[in-house]
């Protein structure tokens, strides 16, 4: 591969704009008993920027994996047609960069052109290939960054390099999975300029996965919405859809009936949530939702549990001591924490279930010995949560993700806590477990515990919370939404994000 231009000219491609690069018709895919895709239609056309929307678990990522050929569909038609005949190359750029941090930019780009992993081209040759690739989309970067290590690039520069690399292999379809999640506003604008150029001048078909309404409107031509494994809206021009329509089409429609509006009126105020610019009274048994782009909620959570360096959020009030200085201090003060990032922040994989469940009690009650009564304690908790396990001495890895998540809740269940902090507790769990989670959260709140709950799914927050604290995409708090003013549009507007 020495030339970057494919065998067809731009004129030829644009002369036939109707012919799609990727066509999905009635694609179905199951994993075991779970039907993820139940008949998806999707079309990528050259020169078009296509927004792909859908709530968590709607099937977006599965669909992308079908398009890239990573997995095979159970039924339906997948038709790939390059502009010059043959299969078009499809490239995906994920949120996490796929560059090798210790190699230079030039080497990273040249890598995919080497005939085998051992035949890394000489620096000069690598630079030539890389410069050709990069100068097409960012001449400035091509001049300045070729010999920098990929690990030293900013997130934005890394993405540009990845896009350039993908295009240099002749990719005609570019799938971007939430590419702006970690970008600043200025970087996002730069990226959009590049993407628009690619679509307009080079006829690349671009698929843009994002939750951010403003960005979608800024960038995209058409919009496809996936809901529950099916195509709800197929390639509708973006101008024809209102924000409300998009939210409605994405939403598992809100289940909350008027009578179900979560209320905790009349409960005494027991604490004040204090942030850098905000002070807000919190009633006993409040379920406080945190919504919006991850930066804001993540910051609140790490502050409340005494983790991390900059802890500028805390609960104050009668009976609340100083802000916790460590998670250990937080547990001692009666603050529990449940993370949906089970693998790194939750489960102790090498330890039996019983140790996993009882660890919090051992910390909180300063137990000196591992007691005989812990066996029945653990069995009781597992029974209460309907966790099916062979034995309390099995490792947690023998359980499903949903059951592992319940173990993490079991740690705090029945303890006299002032507050439990949940961090995306329903991430990657099945719908049944989600319902159980909701019940547990309600139960904890009814017992008087304050529940702080961050979810990226606005729908579940709207269904359960008494109040929601919304953050914008820059991580700044935008204000509290009380239960009687809940609605998806209002929340989407405050957070700048759909779903």
């Amino acid at each position, binding site marked *: 591969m020495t030339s970057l231009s494919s065998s067809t000219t731009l004129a030829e491609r644009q002369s036939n704009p109707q012919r799609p690069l990727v066509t999905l018709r009635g694609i179905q895919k199951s994993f075991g008993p779970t039907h993820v895709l139940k008949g998806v239609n999707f079309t990528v056309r050259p020169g078009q920027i296509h927004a792909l929307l859908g709530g968590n678990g709607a099937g977006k990522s599965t669909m992308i994996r079908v398009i890239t050929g990573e997995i095979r569909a159970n039924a339906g038609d997948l038709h790939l047609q390059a502009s010059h005949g043959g299969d078009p190359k499809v490239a995906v750029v994920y949120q996490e960069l796929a560059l090798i941090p210790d190699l230079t930019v030039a080497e990273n780009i040249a890598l995919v052109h080497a005939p085998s992993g051992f035949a890394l081209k000489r620096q000069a040759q690598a630079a030539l290939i890389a410069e050709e690739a990069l100068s097409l989309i960012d001449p400035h970067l091509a001049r300045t960054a070729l010999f920098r290590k990929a690990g030293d690039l900013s997130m934005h520069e890394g993405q540009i390099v990845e896009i350039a690399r993908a295009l240099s292999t002749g990719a005609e379809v570019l799938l971007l999975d939430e590419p702006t999640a970690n970008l600043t506003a200025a970087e996002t604008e730069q990226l959009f300029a590049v993407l628009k150029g690619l679509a307009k001048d080079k006829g690349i078909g671009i698929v843009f996965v994002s939750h951010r309404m403003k960005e979608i409107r800024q960038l995209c031509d058409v919009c496809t919405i996936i809901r529950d494994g099916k195509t709800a809206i197929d390639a509708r021009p973006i101008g024809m859809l209102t924000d409300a329509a998009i939210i409605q089409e994405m939403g598992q429609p809100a289940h909350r009936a008027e009578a179900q509006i979560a209320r905790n009126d009349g409960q005494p105020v027991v604490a004040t949530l204090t942030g850098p610019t905000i002070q807000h009274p919190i009633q006993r048994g409040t379920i406080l939702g945190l919504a919006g782009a991850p930066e804001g909620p993540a910051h609140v959570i790490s502050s409340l549990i005494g983790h991390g360096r900059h802890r500028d959020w805390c609960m104050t009030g009668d009976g609340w001591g100083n802000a916790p200085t*460590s998670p*250990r201090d937080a547990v001692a003060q009666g603050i529990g924490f449940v993370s949906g990032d089970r693998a790194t922040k939750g*489960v*102790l994989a*090498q330890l039996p279930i019983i140790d996993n469940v009882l660890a*919090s009690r051992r910390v909180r009650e300063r137990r000196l010995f591992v007691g005989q009564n812990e066996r029945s304690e653990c*069995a009781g908790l597992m029974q*209460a949560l309907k966790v099916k396990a062979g034995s309390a*001495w099995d490792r947690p890895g023998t359980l499903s993700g949903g059951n592992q998540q319940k173990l993490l809740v079991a740690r705090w269940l029945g303890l006299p806590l002032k507050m439990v902090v949940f961090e995306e507790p329903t991430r990657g769990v099945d719908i049944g477990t989600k319902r159980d989670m909701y019940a547990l959260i309600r139960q904890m709140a009814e017992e008087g515990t304050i529940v702080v709950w961050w979810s990226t799914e606005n729908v579940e927050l709207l269904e359960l919370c008494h109040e929601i604290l919304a953050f914008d995409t820059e991580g700044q708090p935008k204000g509290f939404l009380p239960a009687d003013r809940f609605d998806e549009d209002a929340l989407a507007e405050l957070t700048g994000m759909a779903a």
Partner: protein
Amino acid sequence: MNSTSNTLDTNGTTDTRAKPPSVLSTYRTELAIAGAIIVIMLGVGAFVPAALSLGNFANIAQAAAPLVIMALGILLVIITGGIDLSVGSVFSLTGMVAASAMANGVDGFTASLIGLGVGVVFGAINGALVTLAGLAPFVVTLITYAVAGSLAFIVTNGRSVGVAAPNYWLFNSGSLVPGIANYVLFCIIFLICLEFVLRKVTFGRWFYAVGSSSTAAHLLGVPVKRTRFAAYVFSSTMASFAGLLTLSYILNAESTSGASLMLQAIAAVVIGGASLFGGTGSAVGAVLGALMITVIQNGVNLIGINSFWQGSVTGLAILVAVLIDRFSQK
């Protein structure tokens, strides 16, 4: 603020899940190693009947004792997912310091305390650099390995020192409990205490929690730094104790006496079923691993194989042990 939930059914004692696993399944790996040790001993006995004599058992126990004690020490570090490369050097330095102290008129008991102090100090340095400075355990203990190793020469300028205190041999070979030599007694006491701590004491469980996932453990309120620090101090102090025991047996201290022991102690722990990634391992396993290494060395000697082969045979034994462990997991 609120009381314990009354919706919990804690009456789960009749549930079979509440029954702890039997001793047999808990110590599956350990039983396999014990079986292997017996097979090796019988195999050696077929060539050399004297191998199965009481006298040879005593030989094996005496030779194994320092290794057993070091292995129990380093086990804690390995469970937390760390490594301690300094134990061999600390072993040597302890012997040199204690022997030199006695040569300068200090009584045996005080000299031993000074020797143990060497272990505590080096363990504290390792622990502080790992937990407070956040350096990699491999690098930290490589540094103290080098420093303690060189100090062991500096103490006497490289000369070996004989033990001056007349009754010092009693520390190793005497019998505090009638009928049991001290070197066996120490091994048994340390084994029982450590196994109890690791299984039944909350602080003991933290070693596994830290080794399994230090982030998850930290967020859960486990005192991660304190646990890690304790592991390094314990490891180093046990190495010092082993050094004193050997000094009391040989009655002579050399600057390089512990040089080969560090790798053997790590090998013993690994044979005993611990993972170098942390989170697993048991005291019984570590002791059996140390015994196995000693039995193999003893057998190679008795059969009359050139002792240069010892390392190869030990290596083979480690390979077999970890393969068995690898494939008996699932």
